[in-house]
């Protein structure tokens, strides 16, 4: 269903006024070259100090909160795998109630929920769905590293076709993960929420502006962030950002936003690179034969064509100035 979304409170970030302070401190215990924590830092840079973070179990919870220390500079609560959506909506409802009863004053802080792909796509899906359906004003951020990385690379429903993990190992009779990646942004967009977007940390201004738009809308917003995991994917730690860029350039992970049901592809790739460029730098895809790669290329092309058809059928209104990435 289409609806009009009020984005008048949107404060755009350009190359000149990029906020610098991340709410995640140095000294966190992430692996070398972890792009997931970088993406989370970028989100908190855009949101600023005034926020309450609700973090589902996962890599990001573990690495930022090794007791008795914490990497967080904002109020932070750890919740179970299942209920990041439920707890975030509880926080928002409590703040609203306290404001109504006069127990607190001023604007509401931003309520952020961080969860991994397992905590979003598999275990926490019903809590997320409930929170989106009730229409709480919060931002749900899914940091998608395409498997359960903190427990040792088990498959999730967000693992792409053909990837080897410890519970979908590739071998003589197995190609690795045999199902396709669950399309979570589409599931969230189907809840009729005002804002859904996919982001990549390689396009940092695009990511931060999407966070700002998510803050501006009245109601729930969902951000799906592609997070490279060198440990789980078997790539070199230094290529994290270039791999994230490659995923966009090959259309494996297209960047788009859905504003009230209207699609806007924020990064249009003129000449997409072959998907082989993306696959060959990762050890989790090294067992794939040429015919498998051709199959994956077809899957990628089909999803890209589908997305383009959606964007052509339901185009988002043109934004003034446009959030362009500064190269």
């Amino acid at each position, binding site marked *: 269903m289409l609806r009009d979304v009020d984005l008048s409170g949107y404060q755009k970030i350009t190359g000149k006024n*990029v906020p*610098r302070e*991340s709410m*995640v*401190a*140095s*000294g*966190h*215990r*992430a692996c*070398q*070259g*972890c*792009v997931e*924590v*970088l993406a989370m*830092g970028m989100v908190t840079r855009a949101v600023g100090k005034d926020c309450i973070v609700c973090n589902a179990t996962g890599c990001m919870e573990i690495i*930022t*909160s*090794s*007791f*008795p*220390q*914490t*990497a*967080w*500079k*904002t109020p932070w609560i750890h919740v179970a795998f299942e209920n990041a959506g439920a707890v975030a909506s509880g926080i928002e409802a409590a703040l609203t109630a306290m404001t109504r009863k006069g127990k607190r004053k001023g604007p509401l802080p931003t309520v952020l929920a961080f969860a991994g792909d397992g905590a979003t796509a598999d275990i926490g899906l019903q809590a997320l769905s409930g929170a989106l359906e009730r229409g709480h004003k919060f931002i749900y951020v899914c940091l998608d590293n395409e498997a359960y990385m903190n427990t040792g690379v088990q498959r999730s429903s967000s693992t792409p076709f053909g990837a080897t993990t410890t519970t979908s190992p590739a071998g003589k009779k197995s190609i690795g993960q045999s199902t396709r990646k669950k399309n979570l942004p589409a599931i969230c967009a189907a809840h009729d929420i005002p804002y859904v977007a996919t982001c990549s*940390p390689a396009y*940092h201004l695009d990511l931060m502006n999407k966070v700002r738009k998510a803050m501006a809308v009245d109601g729930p917003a969902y951000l799906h962030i592609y997070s490279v995991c*060198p440990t789980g994917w078997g790539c*070199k*730690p*230094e*290529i*994290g*950002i*270039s791999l994230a860029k490659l995923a966009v350039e090959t259309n494996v992970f297209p960047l788009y936003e859905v504003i009230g049901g209207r699609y806007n592809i924020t990064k249009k790739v003129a000449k997409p690179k072959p998907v082989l460029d993306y696959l060959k730098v990762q050890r989790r895809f090294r067992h794939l034969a040429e015919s498998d790669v051709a199959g994956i290329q077809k899957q990628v092309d089909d999803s890209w064509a589908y997305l383009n058809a959606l964007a052509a059928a339901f185009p988002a209104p043109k934004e003034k100035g446009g959030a362009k990435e500064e190269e």
Partner: protein
Amino acid sequence: MSDRAFVAWQKLALGCAILEPGSSAKLKTGDWKSLAPKLDEEKCIKCGKCFTYCPEFCYSEDKNGFFRADLSYCKGCGICANECPTEAISMGKEEK
């Protein structure tokens, strides 16, 4: 456990809440690395990409506008050197 332990139970806040924000900075993760970034100031154009893409958030701007890594936190992943548009950052052995 004695009250002199790393975390003495007598000193815990209610609900084991952690009251000091950003206290993970007490752990210097810099000794994880085998290679450290080195900046060539002549090649540097002060674009700040190293700052933007550092997963340790250990880059900061000095008074001359150069972005410098705090090697006591740098884990040596090499993203800054890989993303630097002018190849001003190189990874090498840390100079003591």
